[in-house]
């Protein structure tokens, strides 16, 4: 469960986030949609505890990120924007490194966790290879495996499908759906409407640092009065429809 209220963040003269409010429920995939520079990454980075908000609150599993970042870090799995793995380490070593840093101290326990996510992502064939020569799709899969190794209940994925081909994108979606069935709260950002529509249960559209509209795809079609989703997205960005107040009611 992720709850964000009146979140604001400024970098110099740029107001990256302006009183943003949204929520993401457990057992659901919530899509954070917006054009480049809308503030998606900033919001996700605050939730990942690597940035601090100027104002407002952000809670993960009921824990305020600013107040107890370590507790939040223990329960989140993160795939930051343009993140990479270590080229000199094998896929398995990359994952084992994160497992150890997540506090899986016992060797057997760690090996078990690493094997589990390697199987989950289907990367057995590249597990023993050094990551230097990996394709973008292989790198993302290793990065995702490493973020899942401690079995987090919250997943924060920042444009994970960037640069992936169709097959890699599908494989990634399958894993994300599988995590949803396991009851995870998943927050997934993208700047592509179709991408979000294909995967997400609910969508939050962010434009110029504020939430423009939020809800299911049907809600968004209704709010923008557009049948076509892409038109709806463009209208949501243009007209500044404003927050409907609907999305805080997570259970609906």
């Amino acid at each position, binding site marked *: 469960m992720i709850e964000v209220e009146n979140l604001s963040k400024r970098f110099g003269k740029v107001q990256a986030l302006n009183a943003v409010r949204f929520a993401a429920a457990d057992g659901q995939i919530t899509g954070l949609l917006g054009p480049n520079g809308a503030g998606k990454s900033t919001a996700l980075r605050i939730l990942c505890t690597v940035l601090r908000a100027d104002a407002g609150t952000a809670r993960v599993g009921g824990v305020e990120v600013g107040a107890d970042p370590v507790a939040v870090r223990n329960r989140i799995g993160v795939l930051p924007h343009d993140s990479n793995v270590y080229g000199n*380490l094998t896929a398995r070593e990359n994952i084992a490194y994160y497992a150890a840093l997540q506090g899986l101290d016992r060797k057997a326990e760690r090996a078990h966790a690493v094997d589990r996510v390697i199987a989950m992502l289907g990367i057995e064939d590249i597990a023993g290879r050094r990551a230097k020569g990996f394709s973008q799709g292989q790198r993302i899969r290793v990065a995702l495996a490493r973020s899942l190794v401690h079995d987090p209940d919250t997943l924060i994925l920042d444009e994970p499908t960037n640069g992936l081909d169709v097959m890699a994108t599908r494989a990634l979606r399958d894993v994300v759906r599988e995590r949803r069935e396991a009851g995870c709260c998943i927050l997934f950002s993208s700047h592509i409407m179709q991408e979000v529509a294909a995967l997400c249960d609910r969508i939050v559209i962010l434009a110029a640092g504020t939430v423009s509209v939020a809800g299911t795809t049907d809600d968004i079609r209704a709010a923008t009065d557009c049948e076509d989703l892409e038109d709806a997205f463009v209208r949501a960005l243009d007209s500044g429809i404003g927050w409907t107040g609907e999305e805080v009611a997570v259970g609906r």
Partner: protein
Amino acid sequence: MDGSSSRGATVVFRKELIDSLRERRSVVSALVFGPLLGPIMFAILISFVVARQVDEIAQPIDVPVVGGEGAENLMSYLYRRLIDVDHDRFADVEALREAVRRGDAKVGLVVAEDFGQALRSGAPARLWIVADESNSTARVPLSRLRSALAEYGRAIGANRLRLRGIDPFVGRPFAVLMDDVSTPSARAILLLGMMTYFLLFSTLLGGTQVAIDTTSGERERGSLEPLLTLPVPRRLLVFGKLAATFVFMAASLAVAVASFAVAVRFLPLAKIGMTANLPLAVCIQIYLVMLPFAVLGAGLMMVVASYTKNFREAQTYTSIAMVVPPLPILLVVLNPIQPSAPWMLVPSLSQHLLVTGLIKGEGVDAIHVLASAVSTVAAGALGALATVRRYGSEKLLI
């Protein structure tokens, strides 16, 4: 929390060590460039200096002369002193001066036209030496010519006094003798002083690549942000990376000391009356007194690399930073000082003084070793703290 968190630093340390060992650039700069380049440059420099000193004493020097026809006795005296006078090379004084200015001739001699007449009449007979004192290669020929002329003049003067029935020693109230008390080892110091400089430099060079790779390199490659979302205190991330950098610097220092110990055996130091011997026990002592400098180096390079935005910038700033620590040594070479407790508080200078003492075979004061280690490690700790501060700030990612 604390038990598992200190393990975080160990996990980071081991990973960075493996990662860097698999990076050819890091290994080459740690174990090849720094440690081997230093001794090689050093050996070339020393061989050059030794060869020149040996050459210049034994070999005749060329001295073009203008107007030498009127001073035949002087000319043959110079010739006997291994000074090859050449009357035909330059027609006039201007041509000689120009050649010396250009460096074609190192030193020249002009004999005044009335030289013979003045000598016979007892008036001072004039000679000019033409030289460029800023040309260091002319220094030895110049002093040889000068002393030969002075000696010849003294001989003539002594004869004149004797002819007049006066003891020549009347005009020489002093007999100044030179007693050089420098031991062969101590003389070697002047040259071996450079060794400390190369050792410090090798140490820094050995870990700089690792410091860059683990900080701004990791950030540029996009591996830092996911790392920062893990439940590991930031200071432990820094300590792990710092430890990996330290290990590379310490290894580089070890190779550098060993290669110096070997290089010294092959240098023709004995030819110029020097002995330089680095037995294993002395090498180990040198290594131990230098080791704290690796802590300082690791702290310094980490803080510099972590405050830069990318790899390229980090390389620029670390190369600048690499010049700073050995600077005190240059000051001491220009203005020698004796080891004392206050100087031991200056990192790099203290290592230089201690290592010099060890090579001289004078031994070192335990208090000095302690002061040097504590002040140097403290300086490294400051760098580490500044890096921890940087890692605690969100500016690291922006």
